């Protein structure tokens, strides 16, 4: 049990409130970002994040350590999102400006304006992908989960994740237009 999150989980399970606060500090941004990209709304993302952590606390006793804590919490978040999506129609695709407005403060990850323009175009195309492909892109590329973890969160086989990734990349390749410099 080398993962510090799992140690914190054990302590929180034993009733350690500070460990639970540490877990919130470790994961709330990733969970919030996951929901915000999927829901495209700040309020909804905050609500879903709260629901996710509420489920985490009630289900903490059932965490057995078979997968990493990150995978486990993303799995809970994914199911919370699915329940939410069933109740509410997904929002329209956001514009590039929305993406610009959402980004956290700090140095830009893109090297130049052309790359940033291409990335914004790709991100917009991702939002137009089918649900399964879009979830795979979000979890694997945006959230940084491995293919195995993505498969565990979605409760599908790794081959399915790979298949959806290949489909998403071919769609994005077909849809993306090289910017003229």
């Amino acid at each position, binding site marked *: 049990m080398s993962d510090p999150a799992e140690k914190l989980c054990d302590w929180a399970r034993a009733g350690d409130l500070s460990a639970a606060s540490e877990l*919130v500090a470790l994961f709330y941004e990733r969970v919030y970002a996951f929901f915000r990209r999927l829901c495209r709304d700040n309020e909804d993302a905050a609500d879903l994040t709260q629901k996710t952590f509420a489920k985490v606390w009630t289900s903490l006793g059932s965490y057995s350590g078979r997968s990493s804590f990150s995978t486990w919490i993303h799995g809970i978040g994914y199911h919370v999102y699915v329940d939410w999506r069933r109740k509410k129609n997904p929002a329209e695709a956001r514009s590039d400006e929305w993406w610009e407005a959402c980004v*956290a403060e700090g140095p830009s990850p893109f090297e130049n304006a052309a790359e940033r323009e291409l990335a914004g175009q790709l991100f917009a195309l991702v939002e137009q992908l089918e649900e399964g492909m879009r979830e795979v*892109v979000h979890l694997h590329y945006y959230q940084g989960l491995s293919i195995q973890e993505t498969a565990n969160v979605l409760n599908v086989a790794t081959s399915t994740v790979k298949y959806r990734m290949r489909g998403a990349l071919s769609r994005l390749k077909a849809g993306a237009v090289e910017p003229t410099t």
Partner: protein
Amino acid sequence: MNDETIENLLRKAPALAAPEELRNRLQTQIRLPQPEPRRVEALEPRTWLRRFMPALSLAAFFVACVLAIGIQTSELSQLKRENEALRAATQNLDQLRAGNQEFKRLQAQAQELEQLRKGSLETQRLRSEVEQLRAQLAGAEQVKAENQRLQAVRPVNSGNPGTNATDDFFAQAQARAERIMCVNNLKQIGLAARIWANDHGDVSPMDFLSMSNELVSPIVLKCPSDKSRSVTNWSDVAAGNVSYQMDAPGIDEKEPNVVFAECPIHHNILMVDGSVQQMSDERIKAAIKIIDGKKVFMP
């Protein structure tokens, strides 16, 4: 644009800023599940019986099953042994029964043989007596001839008072010899009748001619005192030249006291069992009763 470029760009997706108040809100909403206090009774040492009750129950059930199977197997094997013993006893019983029947049959044959042997001895004894009497008769004939010769030589002047006495003596001896020969004949007839009955379901023959194979000679069917008949062969017998009278033709041998044949001259009677009774007329009249048309000797 290749896949690697797209993947790199996707991985460079900018981190989205989360509101700080969300963190505070989440931390204030932490509701950790209270760890359940360990139940006191769970820590209390369970009694030995309560702890091992399931195992003991299972073991007791298993032992009971084994015991039941063992008892049943034992009873089954015992029943099998008894069955085998009864079967063997039944086989022995059949053998013993067959042996007993064979023994009874042999015993009956032995008795019959013994009776025949006695009859044969009696016949031999009578035959020897007859021979002796014949010899005596021959001697008497010789003495008689000598006596006649002496009488012829003796002067005729006086009467002969001893002649009648001598004749009476010889006549009596002759009559006694003939009577004994008659008994002998009846004995042989009885023996032949028993041999015939033995081959024909223990029933006596219907006539004397039926016993032609059993009788040594047809001469025995003629009483020596019966001067009116001459029996030399079986054709004479077929013609009815028999001195003896058959009183109970076809009689069953289970009635041994019934008179089978008799001599009308000497009144010797031959019983169904082969014995011959030689007695006076008065005694015969007193001893023989007529029952169901049969003459039954009841002394």
